[in-house]
């Protein structure tokens, strides 16, 4: 019995070392969900991000069908991976309004020329104003906005092939 007591500190140490080792192997969810989901889209008006495509404001989301608001940037690598998925969504008839974060007009034009343009409008968010207003913490992020201008769903990170059905379902749900 007395001997066991001497082992106790070592056992305790081994337990915590094991716990720390186990936690290191676990994925940590870094995503910070926006609290603005189910809230009205804040009022904003952003100038065009590049020549030839109009800028974006809150009123562009009101009326008609639910739309996607896609926060991206030409300097963002996952946005390149996401580009073909956005085109697939546009081909499904979804209107996608882009917000280019901290981006130069020529870089935006270059990105669109290279990876395609799925957007009807692109607003330039040069100081992350709208990003902070809607509770986005990184690029890319995509929001489903219903025809009344309410935020209905948030997707954090790049859109992959298996995200498309989820977004289409959320867009359908946003009709009611």
């Amino acid at each position, binding site marked *: 019995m007395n001997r066991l007591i001497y082992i106790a500190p070592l056992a305790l140490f081994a337990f915590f070392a094991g716990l720390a080792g186990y936690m290191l192997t676990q994925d940590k969810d870094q995503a910070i969900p926006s609290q603005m989901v189910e809230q009205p889209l804040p009022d904003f008006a952003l100038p065009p991000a590049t020549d030839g495509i109009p800028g974006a404001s809150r009123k562009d989301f009101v009326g008609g069908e639910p739309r996607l608001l896609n926060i991206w940037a030409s300097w963002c690598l996952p946005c390149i991976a996401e580009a073909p998925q956005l085109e697939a969504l546009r081909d499904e008839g979804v209107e996608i309004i882009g917000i280019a974060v901290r981006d130069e007009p020529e870089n935006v034009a270059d990105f669109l020329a290279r990876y395609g343009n799925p957007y009807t409008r692109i607003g330039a968010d040069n100081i992350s104003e709208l*990003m*902070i207003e809607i*509770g986005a913490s*990184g690029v890319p992020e995509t929001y489903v906005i219903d025809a009344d201008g309410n935020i209905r769903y948030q997707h954090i990170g790049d859109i992959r092939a298996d995200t498309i059905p989820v977004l289409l379902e959320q867009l359908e749900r946003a009709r009611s």
Partner: protein
Amino acid sequence: MRVLVLLLAFLSVPVFAQQTMPPAPYAYTQLDDPALEAEATALMETLRCLTCQSQSIADSDAPMAGDMRHQVRARLVAGESPTEIRAWLTRRYGDYVSYQPEVSATTWPLFAIPLALLAIVALVLLRRLGKRRSDAASGAD
């Protein structure tokens, strides 16, 4: 070796690509009014940078932290109080944006447990010391 160092120096250039845009007006510029700037600094030290997550926006050099500092300073100038600005950010990012622990429905045990432990220790000590004193008193008889 020198060639390698030179190459590495150029490799790091794309990292700065997202900072080619000029920073927001108040990201790195202090307010003219020292009292207001002191309020801004105090508030920025209690707000978490969302891209670096383990730094306050006052400490972080991330572009997003600069944009958040701009919001803090611009809103103070516009007459909002630090409490209002903090609440405005919490409405968007939840408690996560707070870099200062606050007592809430989920965090109260963090504050209550140490106090409870201290109370238990004090109780045990009092009983032991009290016992020893009464032992000593009875021994003297």
